């Protein structure tokens, strides 16, 4: 036998199941236990940048909305810095850049309020178009799914984004682009995640 490498094995993932709300969003499960639930305020009151709303749904292979999903978002501030000691320059007080949201038990829709992130750099120092990293779990999803949300009003930056350009099938890049519209003068983006079918969302192995 050659020498052993002594690395540990990652703990295997298991589905979050239908009752993920108990642990991560207990009020949605129907009870109030924590002084503060985490992930409901992504940007805080003092963040610079454009205030936006994002709305979406998660659609299964039969075309039905998934009503027991949980999503987490991780994003830079409007200058492209993350709220982390190695995330770039310091961010505004109260800016977490992290959010957690569930799909509605009746409609299957989710929505968050945040600020539009700035450009960031990829591992080789190339600029990436503004985007939000998304992580999706639900009953029936065995390992959390990673994807990215880009913005339709950033066509120029999207066209040169190294990650979007890595997707060989050009028509699939559109699955990652949230569509902007104005509602009462305020920007709203629509982002539907499709788990299967012709318009299956691009998922990443990060």
């Amino acid at each position, binding site marked *: 036998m050659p020498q052993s490498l002594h*690395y*540990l*094995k*990652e*703990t*295997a*993932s*298991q*589905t*979050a199941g*239908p*009752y*993920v709300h*108990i*642990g*991560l969003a*207990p009020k949605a*499960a*129907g*009870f109030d*236990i*924590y*002084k503060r639930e*985490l992930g409901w305020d992504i940007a805080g009151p003092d963040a610079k940048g454009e205030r936006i709303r994002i709305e979406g749904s998660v659609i*299964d*292979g039969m075309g039905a909305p998934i009503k*027991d999903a949980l999503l*987490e978002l*991780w994003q*830079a501030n409007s200058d492209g810095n993350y*709220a*982390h000691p*190695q995330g*770039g320059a310091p961010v505004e007080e109260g800016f977490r*850049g*992290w959010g957690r949201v569930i799909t509605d*038990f009746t409609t299957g829709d989710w929505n968050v309020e945040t600020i539009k992130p700035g450009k960031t*750099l*990829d*591992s*080789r120092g190339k600029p*990436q178009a503004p985007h939000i990293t998304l*992580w999706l*779990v639900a*009953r*029936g*999803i*065995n*390992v*959390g799914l*990673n994807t990215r949300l880009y913005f339709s009003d950033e066509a120029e930056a999207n066209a040169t984004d190294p990650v979007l350009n*890595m997707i060989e099938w050009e028509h699939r890049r559109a699955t990652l682009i949230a569509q902007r519209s104005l509602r009462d003068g305020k920007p709203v983006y629509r982002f539907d995640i499709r*788990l*299967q079918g012709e318009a*299956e*969302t*691009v*998922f*990443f*192995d990060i």
Partner: protein
Amino acid sequence: MTSPEQFYQRDWSIHPPAYSPGYKTSVARSPSYSKISLDNSVGELTGPVFGHSDIDAGDNDLLTNFAQPGQSPIGERIILHGRVLDENARPVPNTLVEIWQANAGGRYRHKKDTYLAPVDPNFGGCGRTITDETGAFAFRTVKPGAYPWRNYVNNWRPAHIHVSVFGSGFAQRLITQCYFQGDPLIPICPIVQTIPDPDAIEQLTATLDLNATIPLDTVAYKFDIVLRGRRSTLFENRLEGN
């Protein structure tokens, strides 16, 4: 500021495949196309940072965090403790660990759970804590009961606690389930058996830890969690064109 190190690529052989027909719900919820593999950029290498101001000290004690004063949930009193480590066997300190579980009768406090076992008025079923400098965490709770679920007509989940962990970068984000040593339902559970590697299932099974029990009071189980490790830069790699 130095850029955080890249993660080792994920070893998918120990994870359940998305499409696991024995677990019926996965069939329509499993993507069909291959994932696109990404070099980690700073958005994958970093992740949210949590501190003790985010949680309360008693959040990790499920025996008291929802109970009426002077009362206690019904069930076997247990301590679930362990460490969060990475693949390099280094501790993952200051990371948020959140758990949720059914009560001792196998019933969840959730508006969608209709199982006939009663809700326990003194049990919420969730807890959270932040690992210490050595990556250690501990919860006090009751051992959850097995419960039936709709998959085949006679499927029962082994006793389990759902566990969510962050790590230091978003690419380490993990949700899993902790099972208990000796449970005969483990080998016949379609959700457990989505995992192809028997050793990986053993790694999800908490071990009775007599040394950590409190005599005449609470029995203990040990459950360590391993997150992806980061590379260390042994040689500077100058990429072509840079």
